[in-house]
């Protein structure tokens, strides 16, 4: 059938939202393009800045066999994109009492035994819009390397694209979450200065000074503020 819509100027691109064709301005993100076409999000939009994983999108391009995955808010539309967003990812999260989890090499397998089903196909890594080495952290989890699982998964925004693509039905992003909590709680060294400070606060060490500040007039506060000493900006190595 002859198409009725014509591209008015070359700055428009043709996209297919769940199969339906729309013309949208080039240069928009997928999210803004879908809105431009007349959709109003309830699901599928969250932070709109690449931090929350609400806008996981899968698409194919005209004439290209590949299935792509990305975030709608962080990807520019291209001519010929066939788009669909994931409204929700069904993936079971293990429930655990973090106080009772033992930080040993079996910790993750105990809660997510399906990790052992990983066939190293790397599809999860390819699907990750953050560009994380997802398969590597699943393999690390399998070996009981909690530190590596935690570190490699740290930038995970939990969009679920890995889990939806995995032939072994692993919920990678939940695995990463458990690893990070175990690592953060049991394996990273505790901050001693923090414990010291809490003791001092509990002993009321700062109460008088704070009370004085609370009662202080603006004039005196201003004086104190304006002449307060500012810790050197010298670079600290880390």
């Amino acid at each position, binding site marked *: 059938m002859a198409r009725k819509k014509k591209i008015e100027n070359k700055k428009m691109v043709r996209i297919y939202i769940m199969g339906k064709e729309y013309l949208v301005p080039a240069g928009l993100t997928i999210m803004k393009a879908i809105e*431009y076409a007349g959709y*109003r999000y309830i699901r599928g939009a969250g932070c709109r800045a690449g931090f929350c994983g609400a806008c996981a999108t899968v698409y194919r391009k005209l004439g290209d066999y590949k299935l792509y995955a990305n975030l709608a808010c962080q990807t520019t539309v291209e001519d010929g994109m066939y788009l669909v967003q994931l409204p929700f990812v069904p993936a079971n999260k293990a429930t655990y009492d*973090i106080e009772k989890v033992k930080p040993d090499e079996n910790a993750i397998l105990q809660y997510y035994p399906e990790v052992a089903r990983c066939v190293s196909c790397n599809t999860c890594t390819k699907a990750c819009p953050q560009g994380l080495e997802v398969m590597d952290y699943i393999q690390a989890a399998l070996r009981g390397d909690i530190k590596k699982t935690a570190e490699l998964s740290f*930038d995970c925004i939990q969009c679920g694209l890995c889990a939806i693509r995995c032939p072994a039905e692993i919920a990678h992003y939940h695995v990463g979450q458990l690893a*990070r909590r175990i690592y953060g709680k049991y394996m990273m060294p505790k901050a001693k*200065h923090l414990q010291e400070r809490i003791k001092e606060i509990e002993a009321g060490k700062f109460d008088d000074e704070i009370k004085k500040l609370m009662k202080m007039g603006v004039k005196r*506060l201003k004086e104190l503020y304006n002449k307060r000493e500012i810790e050197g900006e010298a670079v600290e190595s880390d």
Partner: protein
Amino acid sequence: MYPKEMEKSIRKVEETRQERLKKLPERMTAKEREEILKKFHPDYRKGAKRKLKVGVSKGSILPNEVADLIEAYPLIHPDEIDLSQIDYETDILIIGGGGAGTAAALWAYYNGIKPENILIATKLRHGDANTMMAQGGIQAADKPNDSPAIHYLDVIGGGHYANKPELVARLVLDAPLIIKWHEDLGVMYDKKPDGEMITVHGGGTSRKRMHSAKDYTGMEIMRVLRDEARNIGITTLEFSPAIELITDEQGKVAGAVLFNMETEQYYVVKAKATIMATGGFGRLHIQGFPTTNHYGATADGLVMAYRAGAKLRDMDSVQYHPTGAAYPEQILGLLVTEKVRSLGGQPVNVDGEQFVHPLEPRDVEASAFIRECYERNKGVVTPTGMRGVWLDSPMIEMIHGKGTIERRLGAMFRMFQRFDIDMREEPILVFPTLHYQNGGIEIDKEARVLGKNGVIAGLFAAGEVEGGVHGKNRLMGNSLLDTQVFGRAAGINAAKYVKKAKIGKLTLKHVKKYIEELKKAKIKEERKSPVLLPDYRGEKAVARMIDIF
């Protein structure tokens, strides 16, 4: 990849880089700060604010966009809601599933409330909140050269001495305890090998007390809290925002009417205590600014609480974050964390010159950017006509060594890389963006909401929706802290409160009264609120929409 014209300016930035490494511009004096704010900060623009005509805080000054929602009619008339049929009965209803709401839920649980008697109702998904997007860090005075008193002075000076002292005191004294709680839950804070927290400066801090988890600090905190709430089994209703509070005959807050956005039905929630944790108002686009805020930041809680008698404070000041992305267009207004400056990235103009100290308080820093672009005409102009200043990110690796940007600013690096800009090699373009609701509903240090006659029984608030903690200007790292300190306070105090609370018959009397007041003030019935979500549909599509289905 930048367009040619912008590349030319980048060459100038590169030329001055070595010199600039040696010296920073002086910080402004108090007087200079005052002057630049008056002349350039959007808060001082004429015609952008107005006096409220109705309610407890009648006469106070608000941005027009917020006043429009306060002076608006409810989404549905109270008579259309059947309060006799209760869908959920709970001890504590928490409205909002962000950092404050989730912290409140956990602390209510620690204080003896069963998970099945806590209900989180949230507009989008659990965790869809500005908390998730907070990059730079969270403040806590936990180093030997620092103290809560020094933190106090930074907060109140940064807030222009308008802050409510009891709230500041609680904020700074509880801060270390919050970090410890997070540490125990397994939050992966950036640490040195011996466990010492890696801390840096933020704008307006006098000590390096910014704790971080790379530049995903808020996300790391949020996902751990959410994971914990899920482990405990706290009930959460997603895509079900509150649209009105419910009161009993004595005016105590006794729950809320929720709206299931997908099925479009309402639910009646009867609760002994209600915690308002709905966040701020960035998506109202005050003065047309782009925003860093998440999709649901539309001031719903402010509107509902005001109808129930909550006082407002410090609503006349709005926070514009100095560094919103100004290029490329796709990420316009999105947050570029202050940590880029904490780590040594300097703001420079089109000629590669320094023009302001990188770490002035946010309102001052933002004003200096506006001055550079619009008075001195030293901004960089993008192909779409946006103006901005450079943030010289490659300096970070000159100072801290190669690999620092990927390691400590992974989110920023990724965001720009997605659009073919390598911030390790080239600077990034920034301009102020709407960031934070400085003021809000007034609370006391126990997170109880205050009305005309003191505490409004049954209503608590935490996080961006409340005001007073930050006065007229919030410092970096104090908003995450606010959500946690006052979320915790709200959870603890609501748990205490419900042990004795008794509620009478459910009513929406306060809404009816509010409608009468609107009518008396001759406000036309053309606006309804809360708005729940912004509307970004294309004009062409909207023009042909028909409401028949």
